[in-house]
């Protein structure tokens, strides 16, 4: 111990606080240091007083109440009524906020259609093998549910998107190069159940995934495509050689208890007995045809309608598609600028504007 450190032991002498080693060090140093010895002798007066237990107790009482340990002080502070009330209020506030914000967060997730402006690409390359997407690609595209893809550039409410959609007649009307002779048209598996959205004038033979991967180049008339299933809906399409296709947007309607038809949300499942209609909004005037595949593999005309640009039509205009048992109705929607006499030819891939599947469970 240095001299300074030993000096600090002086305070422990009067109160008899020093340990054996500390006392030895202090006294040995005091024998060698007169100043320290004098200081020690001065402390003797205080020591004599504090040797008396009564006097010691009196000094302790004069020191006031003992300070509680930090944890005890903290606990005592937390138990104050004001603190408890504040903590309770805060807890209630958090609970209320959680209850209020939770439904709000769900409500803020709209079942919105997604408008995706894409550039029509010329069907320069359309190998038949590329027409049916692979299973992995199909799965990937199906996972792009309406309103769930953050990369999509714009989101619009369902009704607004349909009402404000831009027709894409230009793309359909634009001359197309001579296509590669189509092979035996493999119609891709259509999207199941309650698909909202349609396809407008996308050149057939170009898959959805391929279109999205193409770089965005300035286009005179971008096509608004609604719904992640849009690409599915046109799968299997070919270039129409003789019948120019027109742009069309569509949605499915289901008959309610009041007899009125109303749009169904994305991913809706139809039950046996539900009456379904297809509402279309053509991008240009012409003729709309709705075909249904029969059990034999042939196609029957469900409804046909002369349509005008920007007007909404429901197909069939009366009644509705219906199934009393779980089944899958495979439909074809064709929009042609000219009236078609050969209805059977409309169902060929080259004539199909949209492939729709209504699944009853």
């Amino acid at each position: 111990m240095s001299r300074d450190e030993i000096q600090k032991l002086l305070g422990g002498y009067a109160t008899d606080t020093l340990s054996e080693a500390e006392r030895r060090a202090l006294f040995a140093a005091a024998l060698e240091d007169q100043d320290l010895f004098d200081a020690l002798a001065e402390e003797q007066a205080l020591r004599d007083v504090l040797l008396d237990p009564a006097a010691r107790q009196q000094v302790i009482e004069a020191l006031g109440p003992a300070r509680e340990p930090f944890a005890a002080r903290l606990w005592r502070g937390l138990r104050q009524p004001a603190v408890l009330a504040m903590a309770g209020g805060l807890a209630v506030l958090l609970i209320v906020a959680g209850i209020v914000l939770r439904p709000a967060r769900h409500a803020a997730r709209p079942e919105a259609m997604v408008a995706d402006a894409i550039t029509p690409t010329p069907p320069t390359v359309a190998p038949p093998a590329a027409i049916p997407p692979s299973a992995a690609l199909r799965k990937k595209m199906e996972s792009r549910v309406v309103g769930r893809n953050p990369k999509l550039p714009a989101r619009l409410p369902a009704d607004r998107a349909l009402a404000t959609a831009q027709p894409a007649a230009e793309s359909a009307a634009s001359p197309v190069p001579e296509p590669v002779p189509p092979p035996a048209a493999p119609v891709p598996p259509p999207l199941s159940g309650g698909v909202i959205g349609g396809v407008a004038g996308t050149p057939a033979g170009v898959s959805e995934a391929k279109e999205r991967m193409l770089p965005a180049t300035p286009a005179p008339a971008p096509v608004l495509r609604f719904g992640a299933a849009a690409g599915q809906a046109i799968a299997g399409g070919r270039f129409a050689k003789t019948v120019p296709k027109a742009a069309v947007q569509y949605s499915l309607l289901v008959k309610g208890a009041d007899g009125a038809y109303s749009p169904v949300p994305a991913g809706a499942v139809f039950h046996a007995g539900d009456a379904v209609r297809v509402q279309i909004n053509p991008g240009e005037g012409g003729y709309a045809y709705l075909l249904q595949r029969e059990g034999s593999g042939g196609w029957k005309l469900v409804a046909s309608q002369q349509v005008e640009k920007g007007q909404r039509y429901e197909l069939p205009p009366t009644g509705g598609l219906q199934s009393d048992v779980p089944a899958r109705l495979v439909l074809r929607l064709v929009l042609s600028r000219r009236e078609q006499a050969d209805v059977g030819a409309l169902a060929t891939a080259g004539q199909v504007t949209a492939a729709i599947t209504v699944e009853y469970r």
Partner: protein
Amino acid sequence: MERERILLKLRERIVAFAASHVQGDIAEDLAQEVLILLHEKYHHVDRLEELVPLALQIARFKIMSLRRKSQRHGEYTQVSVADIQLPDPQADPATLVERKLMLERLTQSVAQLGERCRELLRLKLQGRNFGEIQKRMGAQSINTVYTWDHRCRQQLIELMGGSWETDKK
């Protein structure tokens, strides 16, 4: 350290200390009286840790006794014979009064100490050593407690007027 050597050292220190409180020749006599007492009455005490406080206590009593004796002889205050107080047969009342006065000053002063000093002094008076105080007060090292105690002691002495005793001369 041997007892004889301790006593020699003690004599030297006591003479120097007493000389600052009483006259020089008396300081020599006082130290001699302390050593004689240690030799005759406390010859069994030979440890340093016991001899030093014992010598300090004896020396202090001797100095106080000398002061009271000189006061009685009128060395500092000349009074008439009629005013001379008669000796009290009770046991050392002057010492009791001095302790009482000092205790009063002490209780008044400790109440003015800071919270840490009061806590430290309380623990000391409760008989805890510095190691226990270190744990109790959460100090990082025992040197920290030494430093706290040293500062608190200085602060307490200042609050008491610079000395524990009032009549220090």
